[in-house]
């Protein structure tokens, strides 16, 4: 119990510190910090309307965070979720345009699967390049994300463009029946349910199944995995494929539930924000749910902050940035030995073990 409390205390403390710092920033801009905090809370979690906004933003964050968390558990740092998301959205819109689909739930499932497959293959490519060509997955997934965005823009503004979309190039809109609606008539679409189910399901998979455990062994201790003869490459590729499928699904859901067609609004940085959500949740799929909701809330509070207290809309970006930096730093403070830290700043001739795998997944 004490350990669990300890796990929670530092991030909560870091967020409190971030809010405090942000209050200072607001005060420098001549705004009452108390009013800022109240507005932040109101805009994110104050009433049903804010909650809807928050949850709508949290849904894609959960799925893109999984695109980081799953490969990370297998020992890979993948940062190209944005590319998988964009391709997922594109595949969803392209399938709906190219193939006459049944105008019902089966059709919706088909477009979502298309998105998941596109995203899964894209991230699997990064895993394949690592396993077979020795290319670092962090770099290759980033490059692949840029290539995916280029392909997306090319197709959306070219072959797949709906000629009627004049000012903002878009693909043809999805048929009414293919779209994903709100849960119980609210603005919160079923994508949130997909996100939560994916997080919980994959959490259980990692924790309670043999294959999930094998993935964790491969990521946690590659040497052991080799000794007991685990099929590391296959496990790594499945972790990448599943993670990419989640990000691709996020893109498909954004298209089917929010934008109704694929256009440049899809490239909104959810892939990059997902990286931070996953790191803060320490690549634990279940922990991703609350972290994604928290950061969805920060995003949702932005516009109210602008309207109510007159801070620029970018101020919420500042808050997120401060919060992320402090939470990540608190991770380092957890085990810091202040004396050793002081010693390390000074020249010395002792031999430490080189901590090569510090960047590997926790």
């Amino acid at each position, binding site marked *: 119990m004490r350990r669990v409390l300890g796990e929670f205390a530092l991030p909560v403390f870091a967020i409190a510190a971030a809010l405090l710092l942000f209050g200072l920033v607001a005060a420098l801009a001549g705004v009452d910090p108390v009013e800022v905090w109240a507005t932040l809370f109101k805009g994110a979690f104050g009433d049903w309307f804010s909650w809807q906004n928050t949850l709508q933003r949290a849904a894609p964050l959960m799925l893109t965070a999984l695109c980081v968390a799953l490969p990370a558990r297998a020992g890979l*740092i993948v*940062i190209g979720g944005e590319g998988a998301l964009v391709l997922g959205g594109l595949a969803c819109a392209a399938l709906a345009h190219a193939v006459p689909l049944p105008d019902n739930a089966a059709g919706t499932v088909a477009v979502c699967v298309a998105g998941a497959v596109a995203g899964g293959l894209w991230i699997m490519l990064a895993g394949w*390049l*690592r*396993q*077979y*060509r*020795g*290319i*670092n997955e*962090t*770099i290759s997934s*980033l*490059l*692949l994300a*840029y*290539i995916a965005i*280029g*392909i997306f*823009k*090319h197709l959306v*503004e070219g072959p797949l463009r709906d000629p009627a979309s004049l000012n903002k190039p878009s693909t043809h809109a999805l048929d009414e029946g293919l779209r994903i609606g709100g849960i119980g008539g609210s603005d919160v679409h079923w994508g949130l349910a997909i996100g939560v189910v994916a997080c919980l399901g994959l959490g259980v998979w990692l924790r309670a199944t043999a294959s999930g455990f094998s993935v964790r062994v491969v990521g946690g201790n590659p040497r052991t995995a080799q000794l007991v003869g685990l099929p590391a490459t296959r496990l790594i590729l499945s972790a990448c494929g599943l993670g990419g499928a989640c990000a691709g699904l996020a893109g498909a859901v954004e298209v089917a539930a929010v934008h109704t067609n694929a256009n440049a609004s899809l490239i909104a940085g959810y892939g*990059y*924000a997902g*990286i*931070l959500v996953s*790191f803060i949740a320490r690549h634990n799929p279940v922990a991703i749910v609350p972290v994604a909701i928290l950061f969805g809330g920060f995003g949702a509070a932005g516009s109210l902050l602008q309207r109510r207290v007159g801070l*620029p809309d*970018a101020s*919420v*970006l*500042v*808050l*997120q*940035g*401060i919060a*992320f*930096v402090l939470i*990540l730093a608190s*991770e*380092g*403070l*957890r085990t*810091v030995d202040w004396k050793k*830290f002081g010693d*390390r*700043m*000074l*020249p*010395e*001739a*002792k*031999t*430490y073990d*080189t*901590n*090569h795998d*510090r*960047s590997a997944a*926790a």
Partner: protein
Amino acid sequence: MTADQWIALIAGIVGGALRVGAPFLFVSLGECLTEKSGRINLGLEGVLVLSAMAAFGGAYLTDSAWLGVLVGAVAGALLALLHGLLCSLDRVNDVATGIALMLLGTGLAFYLGKPLIQPQAPQIPAIPLGFWSDNPVVRSALQLNALVPVGVALAVLLWWGFARTRLGLLVRMAGDSAQATRALGYSVSALRIAATTAGGFIAGLGGASLTLFYPGSWNEGISSGQGLIAVALVIFARWSPLRCVGAALLFGGAGAIGPALQSIGIGWGYHLFNTVPYALTLVILVFTCRPGSAAAGSPGELSSTRS
């Protein structure tokens, strides 16, 4: 195509390579210096946007373009210093920190830069490289940002520094073997923090060249991921400051093919041309990497080239 169209196309690409390549040059040199010390800085995107805003603000307030450049570079150095300090804590991942600082830098820049969207600031002077031609298209395309020669000089300086100076050797040693550095009695953390900060300063010059040269204004869409892709540029240049110059021009030129074709009426493939450098970097990696070993020429301590 007529001769005029060919000239316009070539002038567009060369001019674009010089213009678009300028920020690429500085971020790649900054990232090169950082990575030589054994650390990766994905936060250069934040550094670039923040320094672009700071440079514009500095130039606007002091009424001097060069003071603005200095302000931008210092702002970039400060954000990079934060990255360096955070990464020297245990258990802090440099990739995640880089992404967080990308968010923080962009956020701060947008927040502080709101009042700067309208006004005009003094600009960095242009060097008219096209003086020999009387074709107005060529003349306007070859207006060279005065920071570009500075960047080239900096690349030569870094190359010479790495090869010939004690400090350069220390940075390379911190990047190649932390153990050897410690054994010789130097602090790895201090060396890496210093290299990261200096890298941020150099990348800050790139930010300045975004806002203080054509088109010369500050807006929130000023960077299209040039900072993030610095990592790819450095791989492309195989960790050599001199090759960074060529890589930056190539990336800039590839980005200019689309607009140049568009200017003569060919709109096809605009976005595909933009992806050429990334695809090319990937192809280079495919040919130079082998499973189980680091990429050719990379610093030994760099986690991002290990697989």
